[in-house]
């Protein structure tokens, strides 16, 4: 019935020509996509997306249910049996080649889009990273912590006490008698009530011995005050570390050994120490301590003012009067004490040429230490 009528129509239409026409139509419309399979294609991401959509439409048009190829496929069963095989082959070949061409173009477009998208999302890896603004500890804190760590590991307790003191702790107990130049208001700050701003952390020695008795090993880092007019090498306030070791049988050898160990740990194992006789009211014998320059190691340079040595601080064997003032029997106990400037050590290590910077809190200065 209907089918025989169609068979006749198809036969009249020449199926081979139909397929050929479909192929030609595809080729015409595909031409603009052919370039994507080549290399060095320059296309924007937008255009590529448009072309991808157009290519999908092309596939529907030439391979979809309503396409000429689909129509030709339906004819396969209707052509003469002797031609059926070759016709079927032709249709299949044509369909296959169209599909392949489209697939290739699609694949290339996909790669192009992928590449364009990656390019679009390229970032500049050299822009500095995102982070909270970093804070910094003050160089004096950093130095104090290093010093504390060393002495705690050597068996010392860290102590502190008042900054405003009575004359007893600031002077009398430290064997600084009435009339001694150190007590002069020229050098020491006094409050209207007659108390002194401690002029050395040695005051803590006395408090610590009174609290702990002997034997005792302690260091006292802290603020001290002296009436120095601010200039590049002076501040009216600075930081000191006082050290004290009192026990039976303590000698100057232990003082030397302890400070030698300290400078080895702070400045490196090759650092040498030198002890020079000196005078401090609270020690007898007394010694000034120098260490070999951490920069040049001895021959002399700008940092050690060409002497090879840098002053660490004062030291000595605790004066018997000081022990007595703290109720320690100098007949039974001996001890050594030392004091060094944290600010000055900072200034040396960081090569600070003006120590007033330490208390100006210029952010550009503070940021340099870690």
């Amino acid at each position, binding site marked *: 019935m209907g089918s025989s009528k169609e068979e006749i129509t198809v036969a009249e239409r020449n199926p081979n020509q139909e397929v050929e026409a479909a192929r030609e139509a595809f080729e015409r419309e595909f031409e603009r996509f052919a370039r994507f399979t080549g290399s060095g294609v320059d296309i924007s991401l937008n255009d590529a997306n448009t072309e991808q959509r157009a290519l999908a439409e092309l596939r529907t048009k030439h391979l979809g249910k309503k396409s000429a190829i689909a129509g030709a496929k339906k004819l396969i069963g209707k052509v003469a049996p002797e031609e059926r095989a070759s016709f079927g082959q032709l249709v299949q070949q044509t369909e296959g080649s169209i599909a392949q061409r489209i697939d290739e173009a699609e694949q290339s477009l996909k790669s192009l889009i992928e590449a364009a998208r990656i390019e679009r999302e390229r970032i500049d890896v050299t822009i500095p990273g995102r982070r909270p603004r970093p804070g910094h500890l003050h160089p004096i804190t950093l130095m104090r912590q290093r010093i504390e760590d060393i002495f705690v590991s050597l068996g010392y307790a860290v102590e502190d006490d008042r900054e405003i003191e009575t004359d007893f702790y600031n002077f009398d107990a430290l064997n600084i008698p009435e009339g001694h130049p150190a007590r002069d208001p020229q050098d020491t700050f006094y409050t209207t009530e007659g108390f002194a701003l401690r002029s050395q952390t040695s005051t803590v020695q006395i408090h610590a011995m009174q609290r702990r008795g002997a034997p005792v090993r302690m260091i006292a880092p802290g603020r001290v005050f002296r009436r120095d007019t601010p200039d590049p090498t002076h501040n*009216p306030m600075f930081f000191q570390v006082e050290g004290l070791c009192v026990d039976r049988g303590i000698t100057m050898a232990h003082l030397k050994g302890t400070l*030698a160990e300290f400078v080895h740990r702070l400045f490196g194992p090759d650092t040498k120490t030198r002890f020079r*006789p000196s005078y401090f009211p609270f020690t007898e014998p007394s010694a000034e301590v120098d260490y070999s320059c951490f920069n040049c190691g001895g021959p002399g340079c700008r940092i050690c003012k060409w002497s090879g040595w840098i002053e660490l601080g004062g030291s000595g064997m605790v004066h018997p009067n000081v022990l007595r003032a703290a109720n320690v029997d100098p007949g039974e106990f001996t001890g050594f004490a030392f004091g060094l400037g944290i600010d000055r050590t900072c200034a040396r290590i960081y090569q600070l040429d003006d120590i007033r910077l330490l208390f100006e809190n210029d952010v550009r200065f503070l940021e340099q230490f870690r």
Partner: protein
Amino acid sequence: MFISYNWLRELTGTKLSPEEIRDRLTNVGLAVDAVADRSDDFIFDVEVPSNRGDCLSHIGVARELAVIERSQVSIPKSEVSNVSGKTSESASVEIRDVDLCPRYAARIVRNVKIGLSPDWLVKKLEAIGQRPINNVADITNYVLHEFGQPLHAFDLAKLTDRKIIVRRAAKGESIKTLDGVERKLEEQMLVIADAKAPVAVAGVMGGEFSEISNLTTDVLIESAYFNPSSVRRTAKLLGLHTEASHRFERGTDPEGVIAAQSRCVALICELAGGTATEDALDVYPKPMQTMSVALRPARVEAITSLQVEVDEMRRILSALGFGLRAEESRALSFDVPSWRHDVSIEEDLVEEVARHTGYDKIETSLPPAHHAGEYHESEERKRALRRALSAHGFGEAINLSFIELANDFELISAFNAATSVVTLTNPIIEESSRMRQTLLLGLLNSVRHNLNHGIREVSVFEMGRIFGSNEKGSLPLERESLALVATGGIQEADRAQPAREVDFYDLKGAIEAAIEAMNLPPLTFEPATVRHLRPGQSAEISANGARVGTMGRLADLIAVEYKFRQPVFVAELDLTTLLEMSPQPVLYAPLPRFPSIVRDVSLLVNRAVTVAELAKAAADQTPAHFMGATFVGTYEGEGIPDNKRSVTLRFEYRADDRTMRDDEVDAIHWPVVEALKKQFNAEVR
């Protein structure tokens, strides 16, 4: 002090090179800072310890060198060939204050010819930095640098009644000193006066009137011992520091008065001609007692660890001038030489032996272990605090402890109304005469400093003592304080992030993080009026119900004073109180086994209603399975009336044994919301 190598050679015949002398003197405690190479001499710059006044002369230094080299010091001869008459026939000396002037000796040389000094003398003085004047003045100066005894030459003719009276200055007296300055004298100052008026400030400087001039023929040479403290006080009051006062302050040799004077007189007779009196008019009513100090040789090793033969101890000490008085089986007793005011106990002698044996000979060893080391009890928490704040972008500042008055600032509550400021009698920076009661002033100065240098991002904190007066006669209060200040952009500008200005919550967040790092319970922040803070952006901070500090935006009035044109946020906390609080134990809490159900609610409330109030009101209703209400956000602006704000909270519900159903949660949740609506007159948006 300058010491000439040639001069030392004359005194000791030293065989050491200048470099060797530098090192050896340094090793015995006379630090040589520099050696200057002059055409025919070397000059040492010697740093003499303040208790070694006896080394402020060539003979003093030579004595140390002689002990080092085991040689002798040859004291120059003082033979006067041309003498006639007794000094007392031509002048009189009266000491009215023996405490301030234990000894005064005068001697006269007549018919001197004032003129220039011979070349050798000029050269010697110039080598050690002294300016030649005339022969008599130069000789007194020369002997000062030789013996360490300051001398003064008066023009005898100018001394009224040829009287020397050593007394305290009378009220209203003044003197024109050698430097041409008219100086007012005070009653505590010791002067040398003639019958009429002061002619010299004792031990400090002579007067211009009685100065040696080209017309002078007869000179009176003063050699005396003055009380060190008295000279120090006078010199300080007058603002005068002279070669003479420098030595008298440190103590000269009371027994060396005559020897130096004789040397001076002999040189005058030799170089300026003239006839000297036969003797000195020496007023010395209470001669100094010689002190003797015992040394148990075993103590040398006990204190220094040096093993020194007793013979060597004896040699060192006697070469230094200590006379062996007695020798017993276990102790030696030495007379202290009159020039050594620094020696009074056994340890002083141990030091003499040790420094001349050599500190470098002392071995190096660590004391035997005894204690375990320990940090200050607050150190661990302070370190945690510092770390947390620096991790939140705060730099650590340190300011001087002295400030100007801080009237505009509300102080921490530990300082009550009765606490006043601690004031210094002698500030060094004029306007900073008070001990800080708050750290904020220093930090605001730091902000100003940075802004003035073009840095507008400043986030810093400081930890330090603050001070307040106590009951009368008691030591001032000292407390530790923690203060923070933040202004400018919160982020670094040059980074992959948008710029944002710092605000209240940045500062609050840093404080919260710091408290957490210290392992303390969370602080509470409540709106409060604080004198130095801007109303509406200020909070009172409390811990366990007690106020521990304040924070907020700096009040406009203060900001204007500092010329701040950008908002500045500040906080100050009583660190002492925080450090006294017990840290919270860290205990594991089991993890929930079932998920929470959350409900977000936006409530339109009055602007004054706080998130803390809302959350607390919700919790106060103790709804079942309620885990708390947390802050999500606020919204104000379009669609919201001016006096209102929309606050979005997240309510969390959780059961321990099951996943809660929505209808179950709603049944609990909505009554809570209804209650809040009623309590705060709120609407749900």
